[in-house]
């Protein structure tokens, strides 16, 4: 079966856009209707994405093209890599929405929150479906705009400060990206995703210029991907409500950065050309530095969410490391981690949010004995943490295994050392938490206990955490099965990067 | 005034003068001879006096907009009085001698105005000059504290003020309704139309200039102005 369908990508985009507009227009107190909007849109989007993903596997061609100016088109297209990201975000959006409905029960400003929430997901899916770098940039900036109100949602002095820092970083990054993009466009016209064909066809262009453009693009994207030294916004943005953190860390923002780097390396420059230009090895170094730096900083954090934030800094760079490794196995490791990290990190944030919401616990040393009060949440947290450390057979292990092999293939054996060191560090900052949860007795009253009637916590908060934890177990256990993340990553590589 | 400002002004003025002098000295000989063109076409225009022909026929669109400028200024003056209500208007010197002089002078001035208007078709003169003379007589009337009874009603003044522009616009639009270009009067009617427009313009210009004079806050007026709006609006 093969053919062309222009409207399906637009429909996927429209589901959350329409939901966003609808939610904005709702009066604050229409909670029921809003929930209906949210869930319908999330389910519809997931269904459409799955349908489209299956179509792409079958060789269907989905593309929508609209001319913006002379020589620049707005392109929505479904390809393997994009569908992978779209699938991740729409799946996790569903869970995050359910979680957020539970989390924000009785909180003010829900219309605004869910409106921007939907807008944020619309931008993420737009990023996934963007058919050229220009379109990618459109949605990349839209993502910045739609996440700002979420970051400052609480409206406290701290939240506003975090919002300001977030904006300075992301808008600055956007400007750098725009500069790179504009330079690229002035050379090639439309910066298409064609595995580097256009860029390589440039005959008389100084390689230094191409390198400069690459650096600008990666620097612009690296802000969202939290590469050092551009990671500063991520820990401060932790003041946002837990579903927002989940969104920032697992579904949308940092992933958009990592995904963008993947697009630049694979689709704009082409991995071979990028390798020839000698761009990949510095990127790998940067990724490794970020991995170690994030882990070391995470060790020193006493606030649970901040520790998770630094963990994200570290973990996202696995993706970038995988991208920078020249060779199919390393690439597979990077791409699969895009999904794995999302599943694991969202689980951890859901759990952190549950602790905060149910027990009022924010600091790690307050967690003593939480396992007894909230066993299910704690099991989910444990799964996530073990996954992060890379304990077999969980998802994180698969990633690290592939990355290690890929590094050896690419002739960068030192990466293995980094991976081992990072795993040890992961263990060093996660195991003490697990120890406190499970093996320490409770110390006095919880700071602010809610949901006393529940055995664990509110079911709307608990269920998403358990499901995502389950997924991350499944992703590791069933890595060899069809439609697992690994399978998908391999398909991407086989179809698109290995002719 | 500060030294800096003085120096800046002197520099600007000097540079300006030099540039203009340069432009005048270096100017090319004009290729086009517009006066000859006016001469050639004046038979088809609505007036024999070339300036009137240019004003009211060849470039009548300019004049139309210019009448608009005058009316606009009057409207702004009205609007400002609306925003800052004045006390009673008690202007006038009201001495018997002045009154006598003016009552003698007034008919004469009206006559001169009418003549200047009529002259415009063939000789120097026309609506603007006539309007100015009428306005001057109006000023004299006001100085003497006399009123023209018919103009006490605001809407009549408004109507007369708008008359010039209204008639002009109508004269512009009518040919268009008849299928010609806008403002393109058929040769047979051109003269009549120009005269009608001129009369209307004279009235409006005279009244407009007078109104601009009258709508400034009167000299004899309460000293303190209070903003009658208390509700905060817009920017301030």
């Amino acid at each position, binding site marked *: 079966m093969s053919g062309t369908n222009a409207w399906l990508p637009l429909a996927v985009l429209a589901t959350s856009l329409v939901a966003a507009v609808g939610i904005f227009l709702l009066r604050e107190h229409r909670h029921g209707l809003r929930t209906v909007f949210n869930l319908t849109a999330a389910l519809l989007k997931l269904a459409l994405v799955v349908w489209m993903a299956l179509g792409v596997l079958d060789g269907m061609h989905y593309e929508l093209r609209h001319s913006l100016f002379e020589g620049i088109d707005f392109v929505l297209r479904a390809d393997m890599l994009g569908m992978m990201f779209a699938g991740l975000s729409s799946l996790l959006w569903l869970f995050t929405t359910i979680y957020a409905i539970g989390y924000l029960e009785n909180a003010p400003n829900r219309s605004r929150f869910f409106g921007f929430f939907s807008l944020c997901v619309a931008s993420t899916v737009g990023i996934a479906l963007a058919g050229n770098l220009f379109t990618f940039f459109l949605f990349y900036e839209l993502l910045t705009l739609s996440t700002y109100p979420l970051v400052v949602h609480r409206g406290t002095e701290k939240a506003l400060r975090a919002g300001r820092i977030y904006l300075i970083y992301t808008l600055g990054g956007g400007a750098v990206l725009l500069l790179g993009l504009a330079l690229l466009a002035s050379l090639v016209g439309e910066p298409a995703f064609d595995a580097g064909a256009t860029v390589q066809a440039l005959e008389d262009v100084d390689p230094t210029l191409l390198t400069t453009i690459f650096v600008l693009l990666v620097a612009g994207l690296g802000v969202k991907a939290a590469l050092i030294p551009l990671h500063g916004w991520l820990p401060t943005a932790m003041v946002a409500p837990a579903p927002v953190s989940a969104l920032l860390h697992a579904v949308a923002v940092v992933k958009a950065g990592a995904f963008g780097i993947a697009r630049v390396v694979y689709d704009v420059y082409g991995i071979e050309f990028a390798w020839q230009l000698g761009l990949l090895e510095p990127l790998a170094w940067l990724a490794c530095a970020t991995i170690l730096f994030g882990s070391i900083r995470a060790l020193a954090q006493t606030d649970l969410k901040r520790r998770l934030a630094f963990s994200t800094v570290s973990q996202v760079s696995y993706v970038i490391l995988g991208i920078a490794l020249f060779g199919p196995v390393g690439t597979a490791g990077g791409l699969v981690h895009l999904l794995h990290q999302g599943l694991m990190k969202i689980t951890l944030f859901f759990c952190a949010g549950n602790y905060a919401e149910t027990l009022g616990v924010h600091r790690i040393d307050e967690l003593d004995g939480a396992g007894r009060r909230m066993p299910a949440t704690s099991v989910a947290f444990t799964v996530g943490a073990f996954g992060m450390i890379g304990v077999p057979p969980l998802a994180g292990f698969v990633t690290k295994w592939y990355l290690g092999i890929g590094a050896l293939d690419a002739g960068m054996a030192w990466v293995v050392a980094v991976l081992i060191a990072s795993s040890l560090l992961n263990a060093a900052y996660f195991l003490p938490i697990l120890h406190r949860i499970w093996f320490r007795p409770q110390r006095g009253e919880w700071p602010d206990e809610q949901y006393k009637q529940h055995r664990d916590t509110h079911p709307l908060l608990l269920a998403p955490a358990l499901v995502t934890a389950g997924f991350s177990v499944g992703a590791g256990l069933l890595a060899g099965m069809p439609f697992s993340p690994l399978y998908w990553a391999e398909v991407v590589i086989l179809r698109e990067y290995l002719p | 005034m500060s030294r800096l400002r003085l120096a800046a002004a002197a520099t600007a003025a000097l540079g300006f003068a030099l540039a203009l002098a340069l432009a005048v000295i270096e100017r090319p000989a004009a290729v086009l001879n517009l006066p000859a063109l006016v001469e050639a076409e004046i038979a088809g225009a609505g007036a024999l006096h070339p300036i009137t022909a240019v004003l009211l026929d060849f470039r009548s669109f300019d004049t139309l907009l210019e009448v608009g400028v005058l009316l606009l200024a009057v409207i702004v003056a009205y609007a400002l009085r609306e925003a800052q209500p004045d006390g009673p208007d008690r202007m006038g010197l009201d001495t018997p001698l002045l009154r006598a002089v003016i009552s003698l002078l007034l008919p004469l001035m009206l006559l001169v105005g009418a003549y200047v208007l009529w002259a415009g078709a063939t000789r120097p003169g*026309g609506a603007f000059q006539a309007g100015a003379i009428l306005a001057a007589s109006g000023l004299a009337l006001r100085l003497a504290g006399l009123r023209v009874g018919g103009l006490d009603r605001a809407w009549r003044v408004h109507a007369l003020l708008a008359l010039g522009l209204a008639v002009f616009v109508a004269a512009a639009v009518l040919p268009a309704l008849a299928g010609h270009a806008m403002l393109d009067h058929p040769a047979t009617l051109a003269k009549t139309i120009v005269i009608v427009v001129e009369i209307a313009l004279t009235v409006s210009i005279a009244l407009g200039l007078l109104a601009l004079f009258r709508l400034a806050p009167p000299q004899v007026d309460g000293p303190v102005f209070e903003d009658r709006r208390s509700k905060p609006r817009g920017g301030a």
Partner: protein
Amino acid sequence: MSPFDLLLGFAVCATAALALLSRELFRAIVMFIVFGLCMALVWVRLEAPDIALAEAAIGAGITGVLLLDTLGYLRRRYRKPANGQGGEGAR
């Protein structure tokens, strides 16, 4: 160009300078009116009687009266007692 033109040119410039630089506002305005009348003569010399008429009636006449009236207004209006600047308004 005749000597009359020279004289006229000088008169125009002189009255303009006086109108612009006189210390006293009243004198400046009177000079402005004289300037307008000189301008009317200039227009006559330029074979532009229409403008001469208009300049005399509008430029010198109406503008002059408006300016004088405004000056009278400035002089008659109250001045803020505490504000030394207020006096400058009418001078």
